[in-house]
């Protein structure tokens, strides 16, 4: 996998001496919910920071009160007095007042947070009028199918485990599942949404930052839930439409004999039972489509870098890499494997 883009860590208020901050300052990365790449994720990140600082303050106050309560100096008289069943001292009244104030402040804070939460919730589910890019995501055990729906059906296409998006355009993701419940989560882009078989749900966001972001299934879905990842590549409009146009083409034809033999291996072995390569008779969609396999940066649901060696390992014994996944181990002679890899790596 391509090294994720090192993003500049956001340096937050340093005044607070709470140890917690040591952790949360450095939330950088390609799959972080506080490194938003969309206004939607940004709103949520802001909500997070508000809540975070409020929490730090509340924790500090409570802890201080607790420490004081424990270590407060007691007078000797206080210490020896018998248990009073109806204490009505001045201190008691003060304590009551303090508790009431603390309660009032608590309620006030909670209402403020509630209000913020509502407004954020409304903001992130808002769909503006402009024409969005509609993409359908289907969850499979254990890979992601992304269908780019084009007004001209023949220009639409299906790709797997890599979602490419144009910068600055509103995206509407329609989500559904082919088997069990999955959850689509690319934290830099937006919160997660469950993919429920037989139902459709929707995510709306607008990527504003270019870069490579990582996402992953967030609802437990069986053996390879852990490695049901995907990449989101946010690109400039031009790059995106180049990619889009390329992607709606058929697979390239094999250019030499080895590649031709490789295609034959593909078409006459188990591969053809599950995969699609556009322009060939391989048209099954149990596994990810491989029409433009070589132009993807990763294989095996964003688990391995897309290299020839990894592809070889994956084709011959994927069960070692991701036990329980659906790709059967394939016994291919060295020559056949070589041809097959030549062919697969030619599928730009």
């Amino acid at each position: 996998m391509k090294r994720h883009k090192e993003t500049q860590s956001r340096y937050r208020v340093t005044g607070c001496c709470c140890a917690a901050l040591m952790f949360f300052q450095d939330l950088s990365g390609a799959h972080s919910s506080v490194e938003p790449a969309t206004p939607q994720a940004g709103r949520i990140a802001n909500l997070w920071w508000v809540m975070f600082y409020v929490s730090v303050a509340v924790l500090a106050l409570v802890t201080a009160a607790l420490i004081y309560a424990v270590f407060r100096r007691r007078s000797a008289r206080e210490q020896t007095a018998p248990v009073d069943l109806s204490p009505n001292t001045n201190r008691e009244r003060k304590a009551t007042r303090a508790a009431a104030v603390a309660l009032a402040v608590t309620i006030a804070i909670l209402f403020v947070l509630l209000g913020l939460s509502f407004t954020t919730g409304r903001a992130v589910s808002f769909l503006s009028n402009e024409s969005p890019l509609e993409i359908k995501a289907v969850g499979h055990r254990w890979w992601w199918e992304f269908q780019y729906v084009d007004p001209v059906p023949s220009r639409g296409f299906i790709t797997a485990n890599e979602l490419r998006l144009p910068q600055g355009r509103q995206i509407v993701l329609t989500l559904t599942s082919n088997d069990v419940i999955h959850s689509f989560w690319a934290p830099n882009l937006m919160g997660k949404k469950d993919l429920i078989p037989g139902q459709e749900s929707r995510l709306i966001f607008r990527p504003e930052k270019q870069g490579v972001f990582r996402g992953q299934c967030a609802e437990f879905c069986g053996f390879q839930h852990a490695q049901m990842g995907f990449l989101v590549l946010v690109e400039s409009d031009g790059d995106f439409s180049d990619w889009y146009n390329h992607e709606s083409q058929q697979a390239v034809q094999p250019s030499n004999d080895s590649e031709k033999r490789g295609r034959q291996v593909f078409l006459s072995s188990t591969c053809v039972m599950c995969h699609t390569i556009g322009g060939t008779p391989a048209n099954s969609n149990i596994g990810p489509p491989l029409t433009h396999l070589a132009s993807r940066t990763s294989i095996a649901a964003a688990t391995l870098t897309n290299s020839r060696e990894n592809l070889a390992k994956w084709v011959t014994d994927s069960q070692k890499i991701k036990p329980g996944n659906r790709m059967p181990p394939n016994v291919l002679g060295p020559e056949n494997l070589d041809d097959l890899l030549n062919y697969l790596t030619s599928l730009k």
Partner: protein
Amino acid sequence: MINERSKPGKAHIETATLDVERDRAELERSWETRPGFIGWLTTTNHKSIAIRYIVTAFIFFLFGGILAALMRIQLARPRSEFLGPDAYDQVFTVHGSTMMFLFAVPIMTALGLYFVPLMVGTRNVAFPKLNAFGYYVYLTGGILLYLGLLSNTGPDTGWFSYVPLSGPDFAPGKRVDIWAQMITFTEIAALVAAVEIIVTAFKMRAPGMSLNRIPLFVWAMVVTAFMIIFAMPAIMLASSMLATDRLTGVSTHFFNPAEGGDALLWQHLFWFFGHPEVYIIFIPGTGIVSTLIVTFARRIAFGYTALVLSLISTGFIGFGLWVHHMFATPLPQLGQSFFTGASIMIAIPSGVQIFCWIATLWLGKRLELKTPLLFVLGFVFTFVIGGLTGVMLGSAPLDLQVHDTFFVVAHLHYVLIGGAIFPLFGALYYWFPKWTGRLMNERLGKLNFWLMLIGFHLTFFPMHQLGIQGMPRRVYTYLPETGWGALNLLASIGAAVLTAGVIAFLINVFWSRRHGAPAGDNPWNSDTLEWATSSPPPSYNFLYIPTVRNRYPVWTVEPDTPVVAGLRTDVREALVTHTITAAPDHRYELPNSSIWPLVLAAATAVTFIGVIFTAWAIPIGAALTFIALVGWFWPNSEPAALEAERHRSLPTGDGLSLEQQT
């Protein structure tokens, strides 16, 4: 206090001569459990049963802990091959299910079963045979789960077992069936315990312990018990529906959307139980904390009424926020807002409790930082963090980011370990002398506390950040490129420290049982009635049932405080009092030891385990259950003799003479 005096023929206060030795001997005889194995199987003594519960639950805690350790080893570094996905899925499912169903709820209700009768001043729980039955059923459920795990049939779909993943289509074999039946077993046990606790607390209090004088721990247990009664049926039904969906020859369609069923219904039912479940675990913890704080501050609880009301309101609101576990599902916005509101508002009663506790500590006398109190202080600090992250999770938009990530793992462990385990350990240190007559070692105790506190925060605090950085829950491994390795390693080291803490506790228990300092009857100078008898208490709890004048019966006991006399000592008799005022109402004979609870539990086990394999287990099991129930209800003694005996007004040759009335 006791206002029955005006009613002639009722209970009345008088001066009498008590033949203490004779009463004690007779009570010993009539309440003693038969010696030997049969006696062990037939006992209906709430303390024996509760101790079994506690020990069993703690063993399950250790099992769950071992599983947790396995997970932390697996996750310590990326791409670890220590456990494969199959083993890991079983491990995390059994870990979660164990901690929730076999440890947390049972150990809390067990504390209730032990201490509610003692704290309200009676001789046993209201239905002792039922109580024994509850334990056997619970034990069966636990053994079933672990036999499953050991035979590679451990459930592997998570403690939440979402359909369709856990349905017949995607979970072949019997793994999920074992989970579903384990649920049924443990929920039956929990419901039984809840009934016991409520009826005991409502009907069997010592004279004078009116509702507003009930100890806070008992209040907490009563609220918990009511929550159990309304929450557990949902999961029992849901797991039964899941089981029938999967059962050969039955194959219902409750969760098959294609035939009109619904996968989301499972989530609704599960979380309608699952969220209250958190409070079922946490509220007894607050009861413990209240008890311990009052004891150590040596002053009355600040805001008793506020504490009770916040417990009750927590109980109510706890049922109104299950949907916040489902914000990521396609639900209408309006519903989300309601549940966000409820989720955030439940922080208010928790806040009230925290403020009351701090005020009690603040206003109390100088605190001796003994191990139980340390655990309570650790609880307050930890639980506040868990509560604050809870507010974050309640917020629908933020939840979309952190839901189902390690942030939630961190949150729930802060709430459950912080909110229940810390108080529980405090309670174990606090009540250990009650059970054994010996104190636990204080130095080992402090070591235990600090190891656990540091280990805990080291383990779970980094998980907040892991969640924010995108690490989902329930993953058996992760890629090195994600950058989650360092924090995971830290968490795993923390887990090792935490484990060391638990080992220190175990050593302490085993050492102190033999060598601990003798505790005396009330080592902490506490005020609740369990300390008004010997440690450990006799089988009949109190030689004479005490009477109560205020909330602090032991602190305020006077030489002329009356005790209850006139209860029969030759049979197992207890006193039933008025639900609100706790005025003496009638005498109530409790059953003797009995084998039938075990038989009925066996019949239940045949039914529910059999139903994993065949639907015929239902009629066969029903017939067996009926036979067991007839045996259960059919009294042993001759009715005529019984009646004749009953018409006898008082024990003869007694130490209590009516003629000596004042």
